[in-house]
Structures are given as C-alpha cells and as structure tokens.
C-alpha cells in the first residue's frame, strides 16, 4: 500500500487549512465510496487523505418552510429517511432510495457523490431538477454555485483546488408541485444507464407553470433538458410525450459501453423523461 498521511479535522476551518496546505497531494474523504475503491485498485494514490467525517455540522439535513439544507456529509439514507422530506420535496427521498443498496446508502454521502460527479450518479439529475445551490468553502471565503453551472464534464465540476463542498440548498417547492425520479439501473453496478429527474409546478388550470428536468447517465455530465422544459411550460400532461422527445437535444456526446449503446441511452432518456414528467404532474395535481 502506498503510505499516506491521514488527517481527521474537527472543524471546517481546520479542514480548509489542510486542503490548502497540501493542495494536489491531498484527497478529501467523505463516505469513501469512490475514493477508497480507487485507492484499493491503485488508481489513486494520494499522499494525504483528509477525512471530513468528523467535521461538525456537515451531516445535518433540515427542512425549513422555505429552504431544505443538506450538509455535504449527510448520507443518502439520511435523506431517504428524513421525516419531513416526503411532504416537502418527495423527489429527494425518492432519488436517495434509488442509490446502490442499503449498505451504500448508509455510508455514502450526498456531497461526496455530487463532488465526484460520476456521469451515471443519481444525485446530479435531481439536483439539476430542483435548481439546487451548492455552498462551497474556499481560500477566499464562501461562494454558491447553481447545480446547472456545477457539472462540467466527466468527473469534472466547478470545484476549484482548495475548495470543499459544504452544503446543498434547495428551495422548498411551491404548492401544486410534484417530482419524480425514474432510472434504469446498470445491471451490475446499479448506477443509472439513464436517470431522469423531473420537478413541475402546476398553475390553476393544471398546466405547467414551471418545469425542470435533469438527466444523468446519458452524457459525460448530467444536464438540464431545457428543450423539454421550454416545450412543456404552459402546457398540460397531453404535451408531455412531444416534449420528452427533446430530452437529448443539444447532447453532442453519449456515454457508451458494453452495458448500453449511446443510441439506447438516448432512447431511455426520452422514455424516462416522459415517465418522470407524467408522474411529477400526477403528483402535483
């Protein structure tokens, strides 16, 4: 095993100091579901590991009247099992329940998954559909980035060296809102061959006042399906099928491997966009 120094800071401030001191030599450890396998396979060999699991305050999930806050170190299970989330924003626990298996959900973290930005991870789709804001601590203080600006490319995010994702903030959806997450699991890993999160708010007439659709597993990074959203705003459930046909508009490069071709992933994106939107509208009504 390649030796490494292990640090377990208790405060965000000391974590930040360590991250800045060690720079590229350091890897930040959250739930360990991506970093530890990489180290075991010798694909990653950091000389310093900074374990955030002891940092106070990063695990909390709170659901206020206006804002839902998810600490970056909150486990998937913490979101899945939160008492208030099913009524405030059901898309969050529904997505959490689709991740891996019970062991993974008990250990893996929301922030870890988002910062890792696996192209087939579930959270990015949902964070996009919920217009989540990511709070990031850095050498120059705090900044917030919208989910739609965060996922850049395959395993690449807007996170800069020396920065740590600390919290996810989501506005509690308005009355008459509904969400749904639909995915096909890659049969071995359980990651999404395609996963679509949809969140809608209906107007008094039952048409879509707002629509947001996030797609994962299909392209090098999760993306917002703006063409779908544009086609559906102001429309009702009858327009879902036509709108969903635009689920991959603008995607230039598709993920492709022995589990699924790019064409099939694109097809699944359209099918699941339709299913997720139909369910979301149904739930909003």
């Amino acid at each position, binding site marked *: *095993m*390649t030796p490494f120094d292990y640090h377990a800071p208790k405060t965000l401030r000391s974590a930040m100091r360590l991250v800045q001191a060690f720079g590229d030599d350091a890897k930040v450890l959250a739930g360990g579901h991506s970093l530890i396998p990489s180290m075991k*396979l*010798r694909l990653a060999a950091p000389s310093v590991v900074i374990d955030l699991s002891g940092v106070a305050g990063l695990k909390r999930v709170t659901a206020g009247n206006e804002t839902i806050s998810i600490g970056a170190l909150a486990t998937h299970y913490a979101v899945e099992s939160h008492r208030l989330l099913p009524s405030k924003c059901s898309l969050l626990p529904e997505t959490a329940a689709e991740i891996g298996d019970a062991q993974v959900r008990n250990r893996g973290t929301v922030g870890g998954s988002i910062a890792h930005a696996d192209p087939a991870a579930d959270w990015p789709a949902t964070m996009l559909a919920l217009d989540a804001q990511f709070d990031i601590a850095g050498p120059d203080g705090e900044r917030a980035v919208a989910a739609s600006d965060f996922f850049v490319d395959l395993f690449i995010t807007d996170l800069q060296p020396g920065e740590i994702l600390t919290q996810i903030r989501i506005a509690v959806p308005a009355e008459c809102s509904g969400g749904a997450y639909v995915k*096909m699991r*890659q*049969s*071995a*890993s359980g990651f999404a061959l395609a996963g679509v999160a949809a969140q809608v708010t209906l107007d008094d007439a039952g048409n879509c006042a707002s629509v947001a659709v996030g797609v994962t597993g299909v392209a090098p990074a999760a993306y917002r399906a703006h063409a779908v959203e544009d086609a559906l705003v102001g429309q009702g459930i009858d327009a879902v099928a036509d709108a969903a046909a635009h689920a991959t508009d603008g995607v230039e490069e598709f993920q492709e491997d*022995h*589990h*699924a*071709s790019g064409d*099939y992933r694109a*097809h*699944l994106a359209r*099918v699941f966009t339709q299913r997720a939107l139909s369910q979301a509208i149904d739930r909003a009504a």
Partner: protein
Amino acid sequence: MPVSKSVGARIKRREDPRLIQGLAHYVDDIKLPNLLHVAILRSPYAHARINGINTDAAQNLSGVKSVVTGDDVKDVIGGIPCAATDPEGFPGIKVPHHPVLATGKVRFVGEPVAAVAATDAYIAQDALDLIEVDYEPLDAINSAEAAFADGAPVIHEDWDDNMAFTWSIAGGDVDAAFAEADHVVSQRIDHQRLVPNPMETRGVVAQYLPGKDQLNLWSSTQIPHLLRTQISVMLSMAENHVRVIAPEVGGGFGCKLNVYAEEALLGHMAKYLGQPVKWIEGRRENFLHTIHGRDQTGDVELAVKDDGTILGLNYTVTADVGAYYQLLTPAIPTLTGLMLCGSYTFKNVQMNLKAAFTNKMATDAYRGAGRPEATYLIERMIDVVAHDLDLDPLAVRRKNFIGKDAFPYETGTALAYDSGDYTAALDKALKIADYEALREQQAELREEGRYLGIGFSTYVEICGMGPSAAMPAGGWESSTVRVDPTGKVTVLTGVSPHGQGQETTFAQLIADGLGVDIDDIRIIHGDTDAVQYGIGTFGSRATAVGGTAMVHAMGKVKDKVVDIAAHLLESNPQDIVIEDGKYCVQGAPESGLTLGEIAMVAHVGVELPEGTEPGLAESHFFEPPNFTYPFGTHIAVVEVDADTGEVEIERYIAVDDCGNIINPLIVEGQVHGGIAQGVGQALYEEAIYDESGQMITGSFMDYALPKAHNFPRFELANTVTPSPVNPMGVKGVGEAGTIGSTPAIANAVIDALKPFGVRHIDLPLRPEKLWKLMQET
C-alpha cells in the same frame, strides 16, 4: 430406512449459527506464527513473450522475503494437472504443459508470472509494482472463431494450430432420422462464458514442518483428497506427508473442483522458505484466474415430423476452452453430449465438438457443468420447433416425453435414466401456475400493448456422480461412522460440503438410523489426515453417493450394536428394535439400552458376545451402480417493457423431483440459489474479453450477478419419484435449479416477444437487445 422422525423434517441447518455469527473459520481466518503473505504478479497481456524479468528492486524492498519466477520453479513444481486427456476419448488432443508460473510466454490476462512473499500483504502487493517484466506483446485470440481463422497466431507453439481437441458422440441413425423428417429446424445457439463467483474467493495457507517432513495445506477447495494426491505429485512429495484441509469453504459452484497454480506454489514456498505462507485471492484475481464456465457456440438441427415428433438431433459445436486445461476442462462439453436427448424419446443424436485454445482463462466445471448447455439447447429448440410448426410448446413436449413406464430408460447416448415421471411434474406446475388463466391474461395484456411471456423448461439432469467407470478420477465415496464410549456419534465423510448442508442432512440420517439425538452427532469432513480418502463434493453427488456410503457404514455399526444389545438382553438380534431411543426387545423399552450404554460395553470390551471385536467404528466405500436423474418443470412468467426492453420476472414456478427428500428446507435453499444462478445466465451474466484479450467485465461493477430484488417469491413444489440407485431413494438437487431455470426464462422472454416475430435470442437477454428487436418489427 426405518420409520423416521428426523428424515423429511424441515430442520434448520446446523451450520448456519456459526456462519451467520461470524464464528466460522475460513482460510483467511488461519493465523500461524511467522506467517508470510504472498501476492501474485499476473500478466497484463493476453498473449506476449517474456523476454526477461528483473526482480532486484522487489527483492530489495524492506519486508520482502522472496520473489520467485517461472524459471525459479520450473524444475521443482510439476505442471497443473488435467484428468481428462485420454486420446481415445479426445482424438488428437493437444495437452500443453501448464506451468504454475509462466515461462517464455504468457497466454491470458491474469496468468501468474511471479510471486512475492513478504511480512505483510501490503508490502507483498507493493513489491509487485517493482518487478520489471520485459513483455513483447503478440496478437491475441478472443474467440474460437478467431482461433481457427487462417493465419491466427498460435498460442501453444509446440503445435501449428489452436485446435485443442475434438470429441464426438453418436447414437442411433441420425442420417435416417433426417431423411425421414418433414422438417429440419435449425438454430445457432450460443452459451456465453460465465464467471462462477463464489462468495468466498480462493485462498491458500501452507505450512511445512521439517521435523516430520510434512506439508500442511489449507485451501478453499471442494476436493481435499484429490488435491492432496495432485499436490504430492506436483511437489514430488510422498502423499502421506501432505495434509490438505478444506476449512469452512464459502461456496464453490464447481470452480473449486480443481487444482490451481497457487496451491502448488504456496506448498513449495512454505517448504523452501521455512515459513508458513498465505495467499488470499482478490475478487479481481478471481475474475481473471479462477475457472470460467460454458462458452460453447453451436449449430443445432432437429429432424421433426409435422406433428412435432422429434426424430433426431445434430449438434455441431465449438468450445472456447481458454489458454490451458484445468482439472476437467475437456470433460465438461462431453456432459453436454450425453444429455442432448433431454426428457424426450428420440434416440438419433450426434454431436461433433471442436475445442479451441484462446487467450482466456480456462473453462471447467461451473454449476451444472455441461448439462446446462444441453438443457438450454434442447428446451430452447423445443420452443423453436413449436414456433416454426405453429404448435403449442407444451404439446411438443408432451408428444416427445419419455413415458413414466419406460424406466429404466436407455437414451440415445447410452445413459440409463433411473426413474421419472415427467408428465406428473409438468401437470403439477401447470396447476400451480393456473396456466389457462395465464394465457388469457397474456392475450388481454397484448391488446394493451403489454408483453407477458410464459416459458417452460421440462428438464432432466445428471446427479450422483457417479460410477467410477464414467469419471476421470474415481466416482465412489467413503464414510466412517464411529460411536464414542459415551454414545456420541462421529461421522467421517469423504465429501467436502461447502454450503450444501450435509452436516445437517447426514446427521438426520444418523439420528433416525441409530436412534440418537441429532445434537449428539458430529460430521467431520475436509481434512485428509482425519478422514479416509474421499472424492469430494461436486456433480450433486454428496448425498446420493457420500450419504449412501455413510448409510452403509452406519448399517454395519448398527448390526454390531444390535448384536451387543441382543447379547446383553439375552435375546436374538432379529428381535431388537429401537424404541424411545433405546435398543430393546420389542414392547419392552424400560429394559432397553441406550446407544451410549451399548457403546460403553463395546469400549470396555468385557461383556461382548463371543468373537465380537471391541469398539464401534465401521467404514464403507460405496461404488454407485449408476448416476441419478432428477427432473422437473420450471415455468417462468415475465413481462418485457415495450419501451425499454426491461424484463420483470412476475412469477417463477418450479416443480422439482429429486427423489426422496431428507430436508425440504435445504432442498428449497438449493433450488432458490440454483434458480437465481440460472437466471443470471439468462438475463445478466457474461464474461467479455475485448479484442486485445482484456476482460472488460472483471469486477462486480461490470459483471452483473442477479440480486434479490430481481426476483419474485418462488413458488416451489415437488413430485417424488425415488431413485432405485441408492437405498435412500435420493437423487440430488445441487444443480437442478440452475439447469432448469435458464431455458425457462429464455423461453418466457422469447414468448413475450412472439408478436414481434422473434424466434430466438442469444443470452444474456439484456434490455437493449430486446428493445432493438422490438424496434425492428
């Protein structure tokens, strides 16, 4: 068998408390003083020349005790054995030398090249990175087709092509059958390569005791005695100075019915280094260098009459056996040939096999071992016949079933099916399924654009392996039953259970047979110094063959117990019965003697009948007169999502007939696991090597095993047709679920897609494959 309380009862497995509490001792739980840890450097290339190996840097790493390469051991460790190389059976067979560490050339990714022993496992692993191997990559062969292509690179350069062996079998008159046929129904069928994936990977601990010149070898194996024999040959040691112990073994599925490089290598290193050594296989190593299963592709032709009567079968097949042979590699496809007639009456049958060397891991016995290929092939083809002739697949089955009065029945491949009633199992399954209602539901759903499929498999398979004459290395089994002075019973069995539950089922048989409490019985297995020679656990043989050996040994003990009891009770042996746990004259249990009391008399030795030896221990070696042939009907009900191609198993009905049942709970457990594993082949699993010979499904992130959420609750039942082959009337059930389920699922999915004109699809039935077929029509 005596009237029993224990046999037939749903007794929980006595093994389970230690397994689920983490109290079991696997190879990796063995800790010895001064233990060194071994890591294996494996070839990253599928095919390459080794122009040199520099181990200096690795040797110099602190904590490294030794680095060995192929050149270091080629003169002291013999080749990895294969027990199925008889040129009379396999005309023209090429038997390449199979070194424990590669010399000169590597022939598959994962082939061992060097080994490091170090003071801890991490240092050993680190040292691997410091070994410099000068490889000269060669073109790789990743399929039998590529192996036989003109100008293909030759894997074993002692010969000039990659043809490993040929094999054929013929029965009846195939030409006449095809001349008489109204139709010839043909289909190319692929049996994809699979990875066995036991929960516990392999592992070896070796310890050499110089004072005794004794090698102790702990290995996660299914065959401790056969392994002892082979290791003693490979290491040129006297066999009675080698002790092999199979401690708790966490599953095998056939992949531990073998002799592997690491077993001999660690034995050698322990002796050479004078320190015990341990190697625990990583999961990725297991994918690359533990045997694989299946990997046959062939063309099937059936000669069929208008009414669906099958007259004959012709199967021309190639097998991709990998780069070398393991213990039984060439024998596996021969089991396919033997079982081609399935549960049907046609006797005109022919199979011609060509096997290719490729740059892959060897294939060998994986749960079912050759029989799943035969069952999948014939059960799939029955449905293809029904499709082509527009017949009901059930009608085709019934038309061709061997009738229940025909047993014992000689097949076209000269097997003698022992007993069966195939119609009874089918009828029972149909009743559970409520078949007519299912077909109605299917029709209704199709109107809604939903695609339900109903698939059958009316399988028969071979268990109780087997008569020695039909086996490469002995097919008998052994047991010793002894009663201790205090009346506790110890059984030494030559089989080597690793999940099958014989510590429970064997104790049930003893409890009833000797009239003792099941808690007073201990089953010892898997230690060659403790147990008389045995063949091991594989081929669903442990109870049918090993259990029979034990029952016979127990019978000898019981005869002696009864003689002593009669003597003490001043009665005749024929008047002694067991009542309330006492040996007594019938009707007088109050004056009877417990087994313990009789055992003490046998031990003390002064009150014995004249001429009776003291002690209570008897052995028996049982040679089975035949295999056993369990059978059954599996019905799968699936729905295929028209938009995505996803398959949902709605219902799964299995009626299995494994003869008499000793423990229904254990039988169900075997069937559950078996079904899951067979469904894995049907829907998910596939070992894929790319063009350069890299395995791209080398972890659980990419190789899909079935998971609990993929299944509905199984609906299980049995018919009971006792086997005449052994006194218990048992057949075996270790592989039935796997053999039965793959074709049931495939037939169900293809039935679901019937409106799209689909006739056949190769496995695994991935959603994308199904979706594309639905798009094409």
